[in-house]
């Protein structure tokens, strides 16, 4: 008679092993989170349906540059239709849409899937998490604000007769373009993220971000243009208006007749200060939110 199954009752000592490999530490964790958040903002590494919307919005941001280059290619030389500050006036709309569509993804995904506790149990601190997310989102927005202008600069330069001449003529706009682009991304991105971080429901976060952009806009327009007096300070309420004011300040351009910035009679540096203040407040709110959230 064969013996009973030999395996019954045998215990294997699998052992718990120490990890003796390289530990990459906090800095590496922050950098990885930054890179993955940035990739995630454009849907890179995600399924195709998460790519569609960021790509459509990015294409919208690039459209005027592409159209201008197309015109320059056909009509040839010296057509300079779009000034950098005007491009920023346009690009605010896709930036706002990008904020509404993507900010809830950046903050809400980890809350919904309850992965925050996994992050916070690692080398990463809560503040690091907030800052990495903020930096990644601001970088994603800079792709919308700066890349089309870079394309325009290079393309126009190549289309003109003398590349060196063209770059020489437009050189002084470069630092201004970069400051403006970074400012727009920082102010709109930080506040949008601060709003979106308040809820894990994607739909609510999107609506709240949209409301910030779109409800303040007509209020500012009417308070400044129709009411006047102390109401003119409302130009600092609407992101579209104060960000454009800051762009005008950076480029040292007078506002158009009867535009909100013209009627508000706020010195243009005030808008620059507003952009800095909004960016700082948004950053502080995001850090505070992730400092307190139950993980």
């Amino acid at each position, binding site marked *: 008679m064969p013996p009973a199954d030999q395996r019954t009752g045998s215990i294997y000592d699998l052992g718990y092993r120490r990890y003796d490999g390289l530990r990459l530490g906090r800095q590496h964790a922050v950098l990885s989170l930054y890179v993955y958040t940035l990739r995630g903002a454009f849907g890179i590494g995600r399924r195709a*349906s998460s790519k*569609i*919307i960021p790509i*459509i*919005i990015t294409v*919208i941001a690039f459209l005027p540059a592409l159209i201008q280059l197309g015109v320059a290619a056909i009509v040839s030389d010296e057509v300079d239709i779009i000034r950098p500050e005007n491009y920023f006036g346009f690009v605010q*709309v896709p930036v706002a*849409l990008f904020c*509404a*569509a993507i900010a809830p993804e950046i903050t809400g995904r980890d809350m919904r899937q309850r992965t925050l506790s996994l992050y916070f149990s690692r080398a990463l601190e809560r503040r690091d998490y907030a800052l990495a997310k903020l930096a990644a989102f601001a970088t994603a927005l800079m792709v919308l604000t700066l890349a089309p202008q870079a394309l325009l600069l290079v393309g126009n330069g190549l289309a003109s007769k003398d590349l060196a001449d063209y770059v020489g003529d437009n050189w002084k706009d470069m630092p201004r373009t970069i400051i403006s682009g970074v400012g727009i991304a920082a102010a709109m991105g930080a506040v949008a993220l601060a709003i979106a971080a308040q809820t894990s429901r*994607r*739909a609510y976060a*999107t*609506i709240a971000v*949209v*409301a910030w952009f*779109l*409800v303040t806009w*007509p*209020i500012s327009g*009417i*308070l400044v243009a*129709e*009411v*006047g007096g102390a*109401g003119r300070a409302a130009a600092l309420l609407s992101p579209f208006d104060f960000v454009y004011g800051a762009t005008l300040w950076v480029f040292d351009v007078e506002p158009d007749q009867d535009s909100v910035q013209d009627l508000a009679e706020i010195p243009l540096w005030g808008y620059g200060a507003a952009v800095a203040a909004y960016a700082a407040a948004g950053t502080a709110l995001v850090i505070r939110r992730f400092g307190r959230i139950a993980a």
Partner: protein
Amino acid sequence: MNGTLIRLTARQLLGQKRTVLLLLFGLVPVLIAVLYRVAGNDEPQRWAASALNARLIIGTFLPLAALVFGTAALGSEFEDGTAVYILSKPIPRRVIVLSKLLVSWLATAGVVLAATVVATIIALWGEPRDGILVGFALAVVAGALVYCALFMWLSVLTSRALIVGLLYVFIWEGVITRLFAGVRFFSVRQYTLGIADTVVDVPARVFNPRLGEMEAVALATITTALTVYLAVRRLRRWEIGEAS
């Protein structure tokens, strides 16, 4: 129509907190109208028709409210995974869509209509109304139906209906319609403005929609019927286990 479905959807859409937020949202046009009157400007008719109603309410508030309710009525059932409990019951898809549409329409129209009526009365206080009040009141109620039907169809088509709807409202209707005049035949905002014109009786300088009255009414009817049909058809082909 199904009473239970209507009651459940209403409870789902009009939670206490959400209703308070929406009333605050509806107060914004009213507040703007008050500020406008306090400042005492000329041409209140033109402002009430072209700025307050056409641009602010029909251009921004109506589509936003319709987006919230139109995509949430059916879309949030898919998002929460509760859609399967409705779709596996012997209720015709047509009844589901129409019941959800009715509730989201009434909710949208209720908020926007209240804002329109109060804001317009304030903006035109002591001025001839010339049908501006009735015309735009009618327009927002009709426009709410068209928008809700459109967004409800989007919400069964894609899980990102909110963003797609935003792109439609602010890029297609806001920017592209301004650049290419022919697109006005495919813009719910233009239908709504055209419907307002059936009652509004003011010179073209004060208010001048880009679609004729009959065109607007016909296109709005066709759009509503078509989007409801497409939503029902999409639900008929839905299979259990399939994410929206």
